[in-house]
C-alpha cells in the first residue's frame, strides 16, 4: 500500500508515516494531534471535519490522505496568525454563534471558503453555502450573523457587552 510521508499543513511541512488510504481527518487528529477538526459522522454529512485543501472546503473524514499529499491543507489551527484571531473567529465570538461549539471549527472553515469565493454573501447565499454543516444546538441564525459580521456587512450582535 502506498505511503504518505509528509503533508503541508497550515504552511508547515510535517512528517507523517501513514497509508495513503487512511482518512485525512484521522491523520490530522491522531498522527499530528491537530484535534480542532472534528469527527461528527464519518460520512461527509455534517461538516464538523471541514478543512481547506488548496483553498477548497473539503470533508476530511471522507478524503483519503493520499489525495491531500503535496497540497496546501488549512485547518482551524491555521487561522489565527501571530496571536491575532481571524475575522471569522472574532465574529463567531461577537455573535455568540455557538453553544457546545463542537461544530464551530467546521463552520468557520466552511465559512472561510465561502467568503473567499464570495466576499459579501447575502443571507440566502450563506444558507446555501453552509447547508452541509450541521449545528445540532441550532445556532444557525447566529452563524449567519457571524458570517455577515466577518464580511463587513453588519457591525455585530445586539447587546453583547462582554
Amino acid at each position, binding site marked *: 500500500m502506498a505511503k504518505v510521508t509528509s503533508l503541508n499543513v497550515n504552511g508547515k511541512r510535517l512528517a507523517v508515516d501513514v497509508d495513503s488510504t487512511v482518512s485525512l481527518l484521522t491523520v490530522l487528529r491522531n498522527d499530528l494531534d491537530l484535534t480542532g477538526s472534528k469527527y461528527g459522522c464519518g460520512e461527509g454529512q455534517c461538516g464538523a471535519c471541514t478543512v481547506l485543501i488548496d483553498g477548497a472546503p473539503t470533508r476530511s473524514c471522507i478524503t483519503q490522505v493520499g489525495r491531500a499529499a503535496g497540497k496546501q491543507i488549512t485547518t482551524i489551527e491555521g487561522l489565527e496568525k501571530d496571536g491575532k484571531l481571524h475575522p471569522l473567529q472574532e465574529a463567531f465570538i461577537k455573535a455568540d454563534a455557538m453553544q457546545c461549539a463542537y461544530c464551530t471549527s467546521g463552520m468557520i472553515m466552511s465559512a472561510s471558503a465561502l467568503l473567499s469565493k464570495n466576499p459579501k454573501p447575502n443571507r440566502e447565499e450563506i444558507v446555501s453555502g453552509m447547508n452541509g454543516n450541521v449545528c445540532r*444546538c441550532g445556532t444557525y441564525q447566529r452563524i449567519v450573523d457571524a458570517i455577515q459580521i466577518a464580511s463587513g456587512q453588519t457591525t455585530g450582535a445586539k447587546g453583547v457587552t462582554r
Partner: protein
Amino acid sequence: MIEEQTLLDGIEPDRYELFESPNYHFYFDRRDFIKAFGLGIVFIVPAARALAQQRGQGESGRGGNERLPNNIDAWIHINENGGVNVFTGKVEVGQNTRTTLSLSVADELHVPLDSVHLVMGDTDLTPFDMGTFGSRSTPTMAPQLRKAAAAAREILIAMAAEQLQVAPGDLRIVDARFLNHDKSKTLTLAEVAKGRKLVKVIPDDIAITQPKDWTIAGTSTAKIDAKNFVTGKHRYTSDVKREGMLYGKIVRPATFNASLVSVDTKAAEAMPGVKIVTDGTFIGVVAPDQQAATKAANAIAVDWKSPGQPSNAELFDLLRKPATGQSGGGGEGGGGGSRPQGSIADGLAAADKKLEQTYTVAYIAHAPLEPRAAVAEWNGDKLTVWTGSQRPFGVRSELAEAFHIPPDKVRVIVPDTGSGYGGKHTGECAVEAARLAKAAGKPVKLVWTREEEFTWAYFRPAGVIDIKSGVKNDGTITTWEFHNYNSGGSGIQIKYEIPNNDIRVHQSNSPLRQGSYRGLAATANHFARESHIDELAHAINMDALEFRLKNIKDDRLRDVLQAAAKSFGWGKAKPASGHGFGIACGFEKGGYIATCAEIAIEPPSDKEDKPNKRVRIVRVVEAFECGAVVNPLHLKNQIEGAINMAIGGALFESVQFENGKILNPHFASYRVPRFNDSPQIEVVLVDRKDIPSAGAGETPIVGLAPAVANAIFNATGVRLRALPLVPKGLTV
C-alpha cells in the same frame, strides 16, 4: 423511590437518573482541604437540603478539624493571587452553565468575571452532584454558589478590615478591591488571601443579592471561554490524548437483544499489535491506531442469535398495552398524572361540542454532534476516565460496579462536551473503554461512530396520547380526559381552568431503549394538548388566542401569550395565500412559553416525496419567562437553539426500526434541521426580576411542534396529529 422523587424536587426522573443515592457521605476534614488546595481560603457550600439540619453547627473558622457537612454542593477556593476557583459537579454541554454560574459568583463576590474559574464535573475535585439535567443548574446551583460568594464576601471584608485596622462597616469590595469610605485605605483580594490556610463553612442565613441589584449578572455575556472553541484548542473527550494511548473498537451484536452463539477471533488475533478482549457478550479490540482497530474488529466473525422483535408498523398498538415486568417505560416520572377532579361524564354532559382524538409521537434521537467518547487509564487499581457525560458521578458508580472496585478508586473527568440534550446520562462508552484499557494495560480511547451513537444510545420515548374533551359554545372548556401511553408525565399538567379533568400516565413495554431528552415528554404532551385546544377553538369558531386567554387564569402564562401574540401581530393580518399561522403555549420546569409560527406550503424540495408539498417554517416568535434573566444573550441563544432543534422532531425526525435493527442510523437517512430549515426567529424575553430564575435549557423546545401543526391546519384545513408531521412532505 418516593424519597428520591421528593429530593428531585419535582423534576422528571427516569430510570437513567435514579440509580445512585444522592446522599453523599463526605469525610474530608479541614486539613484535607488545605492539603488539596494549598494556601488561600476555602469556602465550603453545604447542600441546600442539608443547610437546615446544620443550623447551629455553623462556621468557626479557627482552623480546627471539626467534621464538615456530609452533603456539600460546591466549594470555592480563593488563591493567593486573588483567583476565584469554584468547584461544582455540574458539567458544561453547550447550555453555557459555565458562563451562567461564573456570572453569579462574580456578581455576588464583586470580582471581575475573568478572575472566576469553574472546575466542573471531576469526581476527584468536585463534590457529589446528581447530574446536569432537569434544568436544575440555574435554579439550584446558582443560588448555592451565590450564598457561598456572599458569605465569602462578608468574611473577606471582616478579614480586610482587621488588616487595614478599620471597621468592617467602612469597607466595601469593588472589582476585587477592598475600599474604605474615602478610598484612603485599600487592599486587594490577593493581599487578603496571601499566606492564609483557612477553611470556612458558609452560614446558611446569608442574604444573596436580589436580581434588581445585580451588576454583573443580568447583562449579556458571550461564552466565557469562546476563544478556546473558535481556535479549535478546547479538548473535548474525543480530543484527549494520553502517553502510550491505544485505540479501541467494539464488535456490536447484529440486533438488539441478540445472544452470542460463537465468535472466531483468529484472523484478527494474527494482525500486528492487535489485542482481542472477550468477556461474556463483550467483544472488543485494541490496536495502536484507529484504522487497525476497525480492521481487526471487522475481521472477527461472530454468530448472533436474534429474537423476533417489533417494528415501527406495530409501535403504537404495542404502546397501548400495559407494561409487564421491567418495562423501561419513560412513563412514571414527573409525578405522572394527578388526582382526577370533578366528573368527566358531567363535563361531557355540559358541553355543546365534544371531541375525542389521538396523537402520536415517534422515537427520536439526540444525535449530539460529538458522539459518545471515553479515554480510560488504569494506574494500579485506580481508574481514571475522561468522558462526555451529564452524570459524572453516575458514570463513576457504573464503573465501580462494572469492575467491582470502590467508587473512590474511580475518577471521572468530564471535559466541556459536544452537547447532550439529555442523551448522555449513561456511561456505556466509559465502561467499554475501561474494560479495553484494563486488558491492554495502557490507556485506551474509544469513540463511538455515528452509527453506534444512533443505534446503541437511547431514544426520546415514543408515545400515544388520547384526549377526550368538551366545550361550551361560549368557549368554556368543561372536561378534559388525557391519557399518555409511554412517553411520560412531564408537562402533562394543564394551566387551563377545567373543572372536570382526569390526566393519566401509562407505562408500556418500550421496544427500544429510551431515556431522557431535552424536555422529555413535555414536547409530546404540549403537542397533543395544544393541538387539541386548537381543535376545540375551531369547533366553536373562536380565535385560538382568545380561546386560550378565556380559559387561562395564570398571569405568567397570559403574559407570555400576549407578548408573543403582540410581537407576531396575531389577529392583525391574514396569512398570505399558501401560508398559515399557529399559536401554542405552555409551562414546564418553572418556565412559561408561548410560540407563534408562520408556515408556507411550497413545492417539494429534494427532501420530500413528489408530488407532496414542502412545509417551510417561515417565522417563529417565541416569548419565554423563567423568572430573573441571568444572561439575556445566552437565554436568547438557548431559545433560538431549542426552536431549531424542535423543528426536527416536529417535521421530520423519526427513528425507523425493524426486528431489532435501526434502519436509519446515519445523517443521510436520519434528517436533522439544517440552515435551510431554520426560520426567522424572534425571541421575546419576559424578565421577572421579582421571581427566582428557573432553568431554560428545555422548556423553550415544547411550543414549536403544536404551533406548526396548528399553522398547517390554518393554511390547509388538514389536521396532522402525529409527530413528525410531514416526514415525506405534506400530502394535499
